[in-house]
């Protein structure tokens, strides 16, 4: 018998039900395992610490607050990247108004 504990990346992980089912299914297909129990661990949060540095760099959207010594400076420094996007929304709106 196999027992598996899963930590979801988010409490509202949209794939939770599918992952639970597939892990059980794949394990029970193995000849040495007759039965598999898969359960979600709720009291331990998933964090980016579990990723490799390379994956962290690719997937991280916002840094941990501890890595942001000055929140305002961080935000000001990154807002410029979004200004082009905001301009495109404004153009869409003007097109709609016409």
């Amino acid at each position, binding site marked *: 018998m196999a027992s598996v504990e899963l930590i979801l*990346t*988010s*409490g*509202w*992980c*949209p794939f939770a039900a599918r992952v639970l089912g597939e892990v059980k299914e794949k394990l029970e297909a193995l000849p040495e395992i007759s039965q598999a129990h898969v359960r979600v661990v*709720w*009291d*331990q*949060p*998933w*964090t980016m610490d579990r990723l490799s540095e390379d994956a962290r760099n690719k997937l*991280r*959207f*916002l840094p*941990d*607050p*501890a*890595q*942001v010594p000055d*929140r305002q400076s961080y*935000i000001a420094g990154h*807002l410029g990247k*979004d200004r082009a*996007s*905001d301009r495109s*929304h*404004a153009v*869409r*709106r003007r*097109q*709609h108004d016409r």
Partner: protein
Amino acid sequence: MIGDAFVFDCVAHVFNFEKSNALGSPGAMFSNHLYAFHAALTPSGETVLPPESFLRKWRPEEIDEMVFGQSDTDMLVAMPLPLTDLYQDGLSAWERCSELASLRPERTVLWGSVNPLEGKSALDLMERQVREFGAKAFKFYNVRYDYGEPFPWRMDDPKVAFPVFEKARELGVKLIGVHKGVPLGPQPIEHTQTWDMDGAAAAFPDINFVIYHVGLPFIDEVCWQLIRYPNLYASLAATINFIVRAPRQFAETLGKLLFWCGEDKIIYGSEAPIFHPQWALKAFWEFEIPKDLQEGYGYPALTEQAKRKILGENLLRLHGIDLGQAKASVDAS
């Protein structure tokens, strides 16, 4: 009131889970998802209803009693669901939500809800919900499953979404909520993401938009959007219910929101009757961001001032209701 905090709950539904109301297996799947959330996240020692007691047609009086009779809630939003792709009556029909609001009109606020894909009839219904039934805001659901397949629309769509925002504005309504994250049933996950909120917020800066469920699991994206748009807010509805079963997970979510977005942009919601409001309210009032998360990850502390804002003051402000007047009104009732 809990402690000295005024509690304004941003969502309770008057569900109709009768089997005959569900449209095929997608509707049944949706009902079962909601029951699973009730069973999985209700803490030990609290009442977990058996399926037959949960998956039924709830009466407005039962929701009123659960929220006001059995919890420390002061005000409530009676929230319709326009899920006519999954249920005959949308699951929480606006007419029945209006009945709930009419039970305590000084304490329960009706929000309207329509399907913008219905064009003019949706606009006409918005007008009726506001002018005849006193709706103070609207809530939209842009992941749909019409005609047996995914049929989404976007909040930044000038042809579908903007007309309903303009209608809301014409009716004097400047508060709009939207379901984001938390896909339920056979819906396309990409449309539960929040990227379309940029376009809505930028094009309608005079309308305040509330992203329900803080868009989980897309929390980082939501934080960055709330930073950039003063008219975007995040509701903890259904997210606060991790507070007992998964307190560190909840602390991670709340810590990020507090650090990046601040305590003025977060709103409490119970999702009654999926979750009884009182256990989460009590847990939240006693909750602290763990010290190691504050020191290790840099999350701010959850102060009593932040709790008061999140539990009620922020939503009062968005409705244009003065705290003192709201307290007096509740006391008088």
